[in-house]
């Protein structure tokens, strides 16, 4: 599948923003601290930038509001509705923390629920597509949720700075859980047998092996550009190593370093570094998520 930058930026940033919203909603951070107020603003900014980016790939973004109407059947619509609905408790919680130094448990709980459901809806846009075998599994939402939570705790640790042992341990835990989930996901994706083949696509399997003799057009078309993306597949192995190093290895090393130091500027720098590395790692992971995905329509090409 074609990895559109806008969608990669959207799923990465809003995923992290909702992860941070979950940690804030659970009340891990002291609302009287300046850093907590900044964390709220960061969470809102990440979500907003992500949503704005998602509009960029639309052919007619001026009608985007219509996407809120079909929540009965469409995961994309549900995601839009939930994203906007989650703004309400999150913004209220942020205002409460910024202006009144308070954390409200009920508002926090609604924020957590909204954020998790939104990330789930995002992942189901892809997981619900039967045409892409590697996405069509419950492991896809699991990976999206774990990546989001791992990012949230990494961000929270960086905002707390030193002496954030609980957040750091949870960040470590979720990074490792996300790694395991992703490895299982990837193992499935690389070993699965595609449900559709050129034989089922043409119905000519009863005669014999089907092979494309002549394409409908000499050059590319919308379908081959959108569903037949190949550039990243060439560098798959290298990109996986890069995603692992930035998304898992470096954040874990930085976390362990920060935990050993305890507090102070070095610990803070290490934690900020872990967040930056993690964001880069997730961007590469998301790129691969799209670029590696094979669509059933390519059985015709």
């Amino acid at each position, binding site marked *: 599948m074609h990895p559109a930058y806008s969608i990669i930026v959207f799923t990465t940033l809003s995923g992290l923003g909702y992860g941070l919203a979950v940690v804030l909603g659970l009340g891990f951070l002291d609302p009287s601290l300046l850093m907590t107020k900044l964390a709220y603003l960061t969470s809102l900014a990440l979500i907003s930038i992500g949503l704005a980016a998602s509009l960029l790939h639309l052919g007619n973004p001026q009608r985007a509001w219509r996407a809120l109407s079909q929540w009965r*059947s469409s995961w994309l619509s549900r995601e839009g509705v939930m994203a906007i609905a989650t703004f309400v408790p999150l913004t209220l919680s942020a205002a409460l923390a910024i202006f009144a130094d308070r954390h409200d448990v009920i508002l926090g709980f609604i924020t957590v629920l909204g954020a998790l459901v939104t990330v789930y809806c995002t992942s189901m846009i892809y997981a619900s597509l039967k045409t892409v075998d590697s996405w069509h599994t419950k492991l896809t939402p699991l990976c999206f949720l774990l990546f989001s939570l791992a990012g949230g705790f990494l961000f929270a640790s960086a905002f707390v700075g030193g002496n954030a042992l609980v957040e750091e341990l949870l960040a470590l835990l979720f990074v490792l859980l996300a790694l395991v989930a992703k490895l299982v996901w990837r193992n499935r994706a690389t070993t699965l047998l595609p449900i559709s083949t050129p034989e089922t696509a043409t119905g000519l399997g009863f005669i*014999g092996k089907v*092979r494309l003799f002549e394409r409908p057009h000499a050059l590319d078309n919308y379908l081959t550009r959108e569903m037949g993306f190949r550039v990243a597949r060439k560098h798959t192995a290298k990109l996986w190593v890069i995603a692992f190093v930035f998304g898992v290895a470096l954040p874990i090393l930085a976390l362990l370093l920060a935990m050993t130091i305890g507090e102070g500027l070095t610990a803070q720098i290490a934690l900020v570094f872990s967040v930056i590395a993690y964001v880069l790692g997730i961007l590469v992971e998301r790129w691969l998520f799209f670029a590696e995905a094979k669509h059933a329509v390519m059985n015709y090409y």
Partner: protein
Amino acid sequence: MTSLPQNRTAKKLGLVIDLDVCVGCHACVISCKEWNTGGYGSALSDQHPYGEDVSGTFLNRIHSFEVAPEGGQIIGEAGDARVVHFPKSCLHCEDAPCVTVCPTGASYKRTEDGIVLVDEDKCIGCGLCAWACAYGAREMDLAAGVMKKCTLCVDRVYNETLKQEDRVPSCVRTCPVNARHFGDLGDPNSDVAIMVVERGGFDLMPEQETRPTNKYLPPRPRKSLSESMPIIPLAENTEGARGFFAWLDKTLDRI
């Protein structure tokens, strides 16, 4: 509303495509583009039509496949290795995933006849329906930024200003070998439904569980080349010769 019709539509307008007779001339591709670029919705744009990297929006495309049975590579042996021309357009599925994924309500399946359409004024051009379609039936028009798809020439089939014989999809009307047939597949007594039963018409990618309305008729079995070859080549066979040629044949034999 992008939920599918509650009850399955009784009338199922669709196409039956005969893979045995399609010669791959692409006439339906051109006539489809010509009719639909000026018909329903925005035009079917081309990008760089006179440049090097030419591409454009089409609602109907012809692929050609080589089908080789085990051992079919040797000409005249297994007999059935063949090229099959394969027209492909929207199948107007009963369980159309392109409809249910649409976030705006632009995509819908008509309850009255099962035709799947896009209301272009509501389409935001997100492309998710094209991702949901296994058949590549939907193409985003890059100029208009909306999704285009086969309308089954809804602006022809009910068009009373046209002559009766023209009230069929443009591709069907144009096909020079009658490889494309249009009708109500929900009516077991319709010509198309009978054709499907008699010829063993099939669904494309049934495993995707989309229940396509359009059906494809399989290529008829062929005799192998060695079977159809006469034992004595025609030029050397004088059996059945009469009159002067019979006399000449006999005389020459005697010499």
